């Protein structure tokens, strides 16, 4: 492999700076290869995280259902893994042949880390094979714990591989400031290049994002199998699997904005102009589209839960609350999607009567948006809570007091969010930014304490009836498909934002893109590219999962025992 790298670099040294790709052009070819590789990679990195967690619940909770669920997750992983490697190879060959000088520059700095990457990828592959094919062999006692450790090892390899790849792309965004166009790449110390401003924020953001994405794709797979199921047992199993996928995706989604906030702050600290380009420059409309997509995610995720309450005896008592939750979500989405600082021409400014709309301008600022999104997170958490306690009646003597304390915590968290949201209009920007920490802190504290109280209150709770897994109307399953498509599209959009803020630079202010494709395209063009990538990815995923279904029957368990809620 090392020889191969050297050959590629030697070829790059002797070739011109660029070559073009027939018909679609080099930028589009690279865009498609990189994006689809990244989507598969996100899936194969996200799924092992919750496969290992599910296996642990199976082992330590002595619940075979979770163990089988973990195995089914891993089967999906096995099939998708080779697709990840194939698209990775396509990406590398396209990059080295279409952008040889840039490739030579990157290999001159990161060559050794590329060799390490390949070695770990090799270990990761064989750990995965051992993990999956050893599932039934190492099933009991210490062997089972050893098998579980293999799953942990798989995650460690995967995380290292991702961290290495992240160092390459973050170097392109935020190269250390002492590196100039005149700096010879061979003189740059590799650790200096790896430890750039955005490396760790991207690592963390992707780690969480992969869990969200993996959960969403698993949810879509389960919903497909649910719709195609021929027996009630099969339907019940895939209904439960879809619920678990949605739970994982939505839970991780709640944390994702905090990692995104850190990444954004690091970009601003590295270069104000880059941050401004991203948030208020030619990309400003992108965030309105992002707000719309996240609103779809919140609405579809909550809708799935509300429909799901139809199969839970005792959930009727919570139905009246859903219309109020819907109202908060819709109003929150409208505020979050309100544009504020936009590039506008003189005609548009005249039509608005100033640089901001006289009415909507007040809703487009950070104070209003932070308030809206925090209230949306609180509402979604409340939906989960109602779902969770729908079919139980608490029997602990302090149940009423506990519920009142929980309600009080919701009220206090919402009041803190609203207070700092309103106060933000009357203080300096630097103070206002600090208020978002209090708002987020109040929401997180509410989520943690209310959950702890709920778990304690559920001890020995009386059941109002078993959850009737499988008794879900088909429309709920289409909500899971919308979630998967939206998560995938959002990933493509955020990838465009991250990569696009480099504008006409391969490496920001160090190595310029001088191809005819150097201009960063407008959002409409990017949307066509993103949709194309999503369509190719989902088609391949559909085909791969169908192949997997041919090779092996599903691992569902006949529903002689009630499937538990997640976490119970």
């Amino acid at each position, binding site marked *: 492999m090392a020889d191969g790298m050297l050959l590629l670099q030697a070829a790059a040294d002797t070739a011109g700076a660029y070559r073009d790709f027939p018909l679609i052009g080099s930028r589009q070819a690279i865009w498609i290869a990189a994006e689809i590789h990244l989507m598969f990679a996100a899936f194969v990195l996200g799924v092992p995280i919750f496969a290992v967690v599910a296996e642990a619940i199976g082992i330590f909770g002595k619940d075979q259902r979770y163990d089988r669920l973990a195995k089914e997750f891993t089967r999906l992983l096995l099939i998708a893994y080779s697709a990840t490697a194939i698209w990775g190879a396509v990406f590398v060959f396209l990059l080295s042949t279409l952008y040889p000088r840039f490739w030579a520059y990157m290999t001159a700095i990161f060559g050794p880390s590329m060799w390490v990457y390949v070695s770990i990828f090799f270990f990761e592959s064989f750990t995965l094979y051992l993990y999956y094919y050893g599932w039934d062999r190492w099933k009991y006692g210490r062997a089972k714990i050893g098998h579980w450790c293999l799953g942990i090892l798989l995650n460690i390899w995967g995380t290292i591989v991702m961290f290495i790849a992240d160092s390459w792309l973050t170097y392109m965004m935020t190269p250390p400031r002492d590196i100039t166009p005149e700096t010879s790449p061979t003189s740059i110390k590799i650790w200096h290049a790896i430890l750039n401003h955005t490396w760790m924020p991207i690592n963390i953001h992707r780690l969480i994002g992969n869990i969200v994405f993996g959960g969403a794709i698993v949810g879509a797979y389960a919903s497909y199998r649910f719709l195609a199921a021929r027996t009630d047992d099969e339907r019940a199993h895939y209904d439960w699997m879809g619920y678990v996928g949605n739970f994982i995706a939505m839970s991780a989604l709640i944390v994702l904005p905090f990692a995104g906030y850190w990444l954004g702050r690091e970009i601003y600290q590295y270069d104000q102009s880059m941050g*401004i380009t991203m948030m208020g*420059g030619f990309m400003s409309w992108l965030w309105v589209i992002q707000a719309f997509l996240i609103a779809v995610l919140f609405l579809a995720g909550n809708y799935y839960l509300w429909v799901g309450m139809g199969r839970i005896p005792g959930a009727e008592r919570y139905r009246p609350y859903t219309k109020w939750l819907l109202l908060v979500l819709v109003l929150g989405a409208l505020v979050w999607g309100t544009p504020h600082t936009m590039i506008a021409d003189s005609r548009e400014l005249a039509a608005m009567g100033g640089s901001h709309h006289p009415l909507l301008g007040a809703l487009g600022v950070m104070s209003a948006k932070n308030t809206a999104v925090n209230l949306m997170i609180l509402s979604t958490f409340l939906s989960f809570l109602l779902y969770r306690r729908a079919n139980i009646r608490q029997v602990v003597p302090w149940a009423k007091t506990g519920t009142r304390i929980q309600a009080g915590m919701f009220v206090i968290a919402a009041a803190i969010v609203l207070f700092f949201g309103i106060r933000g209009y009357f203080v300096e920007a630097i103070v206002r930014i600090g208020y978002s920490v209090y708002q987020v802190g109040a929401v997180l504290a509410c989520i943690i304490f209310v959950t702890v109280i709920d778990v304690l209150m559920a001890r020995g709770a009386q059941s109002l009836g078993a959850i009737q897994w499988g008794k879900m109307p088909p429309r709920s399953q*289409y909500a899971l498909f919308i979630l998967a498509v939206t998560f995938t599209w959002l990933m493509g959009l955020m990838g465009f934002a991250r990569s696009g803020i480099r*504008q006409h630079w391969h490496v920001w202010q160090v190595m*310029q893109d001088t191809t005819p494709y150097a201009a960063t395209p407008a959002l*409409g*063009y990017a949307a066509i590219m993103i949709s194309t990538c999503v369509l190719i990815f989902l088609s391949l995923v559909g085909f791969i999962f169908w192949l997997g279904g041919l090779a092996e029957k599903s691992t569902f368990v006949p529903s002689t025992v009630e499937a538990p809620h997640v976490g119970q």
Partner: protein
Amino acid sequence: MWANNLRILGVVLGTLALYTLIANKIPQVQSEVPHALTLGANVTPEQLVSAGDQLYHGAGGCTACHGLGTRAPNLLTDEKGQGPIGARCGKREPGKDCKAYLYESLTNPRAYVVPGYEPIMPDMGRILSPQQIWALVAFLESNGGTVDVTGSDIPPSSTTSTTSTSSTPSAGIAGGSTDPMTIIRGAGCTGCHKIGGEGGAIGPDLTHVGSRLSANLIRESILNPDAKVAKGYEKFKGIMPKMFGNQLTAAQLEALVQFLASHK
């Protein structure tokens, strides 16, 4: 079975079509590449203004902040009753004409931060070529003032490059002068630091810096400003440019260090 598959396909394609349609219905803004300019010595003011206009509204990225009235001053419209930038630029700094003020504001933007705004503007010398900078100056002058940029302002060595040459070793700041105060003013130090009653208050006061720092530490602070940040100024870490090692000549650096070290 097939009915289910068709419905799923419909949901997927419908969702993708909706997102693509919305993204195509909003205003389409493309980030252009700064085009190389080939302006000769006999370039006309009209050609300079036209090139500057394109840069200002396109690849220069100026409209992201200027014109919105929140992040940076309005340049093409009235700002606090003083008229557009061409009308007010000559009055901003005593003894500095409009052309010199605008050029310095672009290449050393922290030298003259307008009160009420943050020092967020990047050094455009890192992003644009000297020809492009002068085209921008001409365009800004044309908004309410008189264009006096000519071909003779543009250095002959700046041909068609789209990037700056500011990061390469040069003849030094302020024409290579070794007079410490000329260097301090030329490098824009007084935009943030006060010395002898002159200058801003964003960075530490340099009037008695020699009593606090040795010559070696002063040199280090100029070349690598973030290595040690003065107490009380931690939140401004990263603001001071790190390119003085490339911009100052060795003689200028030493003159500056000895001058500051003697201020006890």
